[in-house]
């Protein structure tokens, strides 16, 4: 069982001071402790972006992949070794722009992995451009006259795409986030947390302040997260009041649950002596 101080690595953290990523990092580490997992059991997967560096800051298994491909990578790892706990860390551009192809499909497929999206509503590492969750009018070097498209609503997309665990957290409230991460990892199936992650360098609009003024907790208002319809209603809420917490949760057989022939993790199946004579007989 891991203790917090074992989770550090020798790598210097190079996020901007005050970056929301710190909140996610600490929430994740504490969640691992809460969950009583061992270091070797857990694999982190990340995309490319400021968020992606998180893999270097936690002393567990890690795959710092390419931009946009957190979900397929995490899926592959879990399929191969179902004894691993696999947690993906993606950016908003990473997951909602470049990697959007995978999102709704991962939700449908329900492989037992967790996805945490560092949603700072900006491309951070490429020095600040508009992403698909940027607010209308948001001015950046790629939209100097302001973004002109309404933002994507990944929470709603997840819900209508049959995701079985859909939540939103706030990097400015790591305790709350920690709890969400614990529940997400415990959840059997695809679990997804969109995390509001203030980018103190490039997102002049969606600051800690901005979020704090608007955010409220679904659990504080008695939201029933087993009610899909209510969840959808909540997912459309935006403006003065923005909900965080668990929107939706349901139990549904995972992808691997539905493959009855698999009795053990694939990595444990010996490959030294596969017998293909029967197929060859059929070809004779």
């Amino acid at each position, binding site marked *: 069982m891991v203790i917090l101080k074992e989770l550090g690595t020798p*790598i210097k953290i190079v996020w901007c001071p005050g970056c929301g990523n710190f909140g996610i990092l600490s929430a994740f580490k504490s969640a691992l402790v809460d969950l009583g997992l061992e270091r070797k059991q857990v694999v982190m997967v990340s995309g490319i972006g400021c968020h992606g560096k998180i893999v270097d800051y936690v002393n567990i298994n890690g795959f*710092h992949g390419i931009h946009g491909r957190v979900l397929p990578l995490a899926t592959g*790892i879990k*399929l*191969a*070794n179902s004894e691993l706990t696999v947690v993906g860390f993606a950016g908003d551009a990473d997951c909602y722009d470049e990697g959007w192809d995978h999102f709704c*499909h991962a939700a449908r497929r329900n492989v037992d992995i967790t996805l945490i999206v560092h949603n700072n509503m900006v491309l951070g590492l490429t020095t600040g451009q508009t992403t698909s969750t940027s607010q209308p009018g948001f001015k950046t070097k790629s939209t100097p006259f302001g973004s002109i498209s309404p933002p994507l609503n990944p929470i709603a997309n997840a819900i209508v795409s049959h995701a079985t665990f859909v939540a939103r957290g706030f990097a400015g409230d790591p305790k709350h986030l920690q709890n969400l991460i614990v529940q997400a990892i415990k959840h059997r199936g695809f679990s997804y947390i969109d995390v509001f992650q203030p980018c103190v360098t490039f997102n002049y609009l969606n600051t800690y302040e901005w979020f704090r003024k608007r955010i409220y907790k679904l659990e504080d208002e008695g939201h029933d997260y087993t009610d899909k319809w209510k969840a959808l209603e909540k997912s459309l809420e935006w403006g003065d009041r923005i909900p965080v917490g668990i929107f939706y949760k349901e139990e549904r057989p995972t992808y691997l649950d539905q493959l009855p022939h698999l009795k053990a993790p*694939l990595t444990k199946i010996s490959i030294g002596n*596969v017998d293909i004579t029967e197929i*060859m007989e059929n070809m004779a």
Partner: protein
Amino acid sequence: MKINELSVLIGGEAGAGIARSGFLFAKTCMRGGLHVFGTIYYQSLIRGGHNFYVARVNRERVYSQLDYTNLIIALNAETVMVHKNELDYGGGIIYDEDDIQLTRESLERNDLKLYPIPLKRIVREDLKERRLVMRNTVALGAAFALLQYDLRLLEGVLMDTFKANVAESNIKAAQIGYKYAEENFERNFGYRLEKLETSEKRIFLNGNEAIGLGAIKAGCKVYVAYPMTPSTGLLHFMAANERKYNMVVLQPEGEVAAINIAAGAAFAGVRAMTATSGGGFCLMSEGLGMAGMTETPLVINVAQRPGPSTGLPTHSAQGDLRFILHASQGEFPRIVIAPGDIEECFYETMRAFNLAEKYQLPVILLTDKYLLESQRSVEAFDITLIKIERGTLITERYEGEERYKRHKLTETGVSPRALPLTKGAIVRTSANEHDEYGFTTEDPEITTEMMDKRMRKLAFLTKEIEERNLAMIKFYGSKEAMATLISWGSTKGPIMEALKILSRENIVVNYLQVLYLQPFPKNKVEKVLDTAKKTIIIENNKTSQLSSLIREYTLRDVDHKILKYDGRPFNPGYLSRRIKEVM
């Protein structure tokens, strides 16, 4: 009377069961101890159009179709119109007299034998069947009657191919066809098939199936692919075997997902594979580079078809060699193997998995439609020939340094490969440049060291291959020859046949097959070039990509190029004529 030397063409619309009938015909021949090659030509559409299957039967090993045919089974009029000129002297046509009116006069061929059969009427009236496709089996029965072949062999194949009740009605159809031909036609067809005794155990399969068998035998546990002709057959084969062989076979949302899922699975420790064709490979190329950088073992079957772009999706070409060799940004080692026949599809796939794991890099099987979708009778595979080798894999407990180094700098370039969940090892990698531990770095020295480390694997590999004497090239024919043919991949089949034709004409040529395109077997190729009197390269592309490689590596050009890029494979007769022209 020719015995056991036959080429048959079965033609009709898409959806008319042409491929199936061809398969049945060919397999029936194999069951009688004969050698068979069968190949299917079809268009990118589901119904209508023109499909045809060509089966070549012989008492000796066969490697490709021929230029001509001896018997046409025409399931529509178009088949006759398109192919009548391919009929050799004395050839025959089986056709439905209710659909097609044929006379020797209208065909302007006095030599032909016409075998009109009321195929559809038989199905409806005699068989009382609504499935019109049964007429194909009637025709097959008739064909075997003309060929004086043992009908029980076809019956056996039908039994093994179909569910009981379907098999039964097909057997009836075959019998009726057989009888009809016996009763209505003279025994004057110039070709006969005769059963041969053989102790060789043979199987009949296509390239996709051979690769699938190789993958299963090699212990592939995760197969992920998005359908794309001509690789789709492999997906179907793997999916059909998912449960029996404890695999996960997944069709994801596209090729980008496919390669990344496969890479994730390989990183976690199973043997993983994907397959696609050019357009899908474009989308995979970024993931390929990631596998290269993270030293993740992956096997990819890239199934060529004519490009550029969507091109001719159901036809064949060899236009992607250079692309595959250089795909993805930056420089990293990869292995590219181009099997040339069914046997190589099987054995090289097994080898590919070993190489991928031993050297921790992506291995590409570069194939094409003609190879993957042509069927051949081959000797059942020797499953003892290639042992599973997993290189430096560590699954239980890592006993090395206190902190495990996934990308440890070693003399060979290969690092010990612990898996996540291995005791004593935290496993970490990065698609960014990284240090030995897998932490991302931008340090110029480490960058240089890591590039050198990765590239060193190729040298190590080349050395090992040479030491173990694994075939990176193959050489056919005598050392002394008037010319040396050079090719890669599926052109092997027609070339092997062309060699036979030429040798019958006392023209002595030999043949260099380049099996490994990367690492390129420079020394071995050079040695062949050193003694070659004249070199003739044969490729299914426009720019002769193999000769560009030969130029690049050996600083020599080949003397002649025979190129074809119309989507169709070479026929051996045509090829041997072209060879003679340039000699």
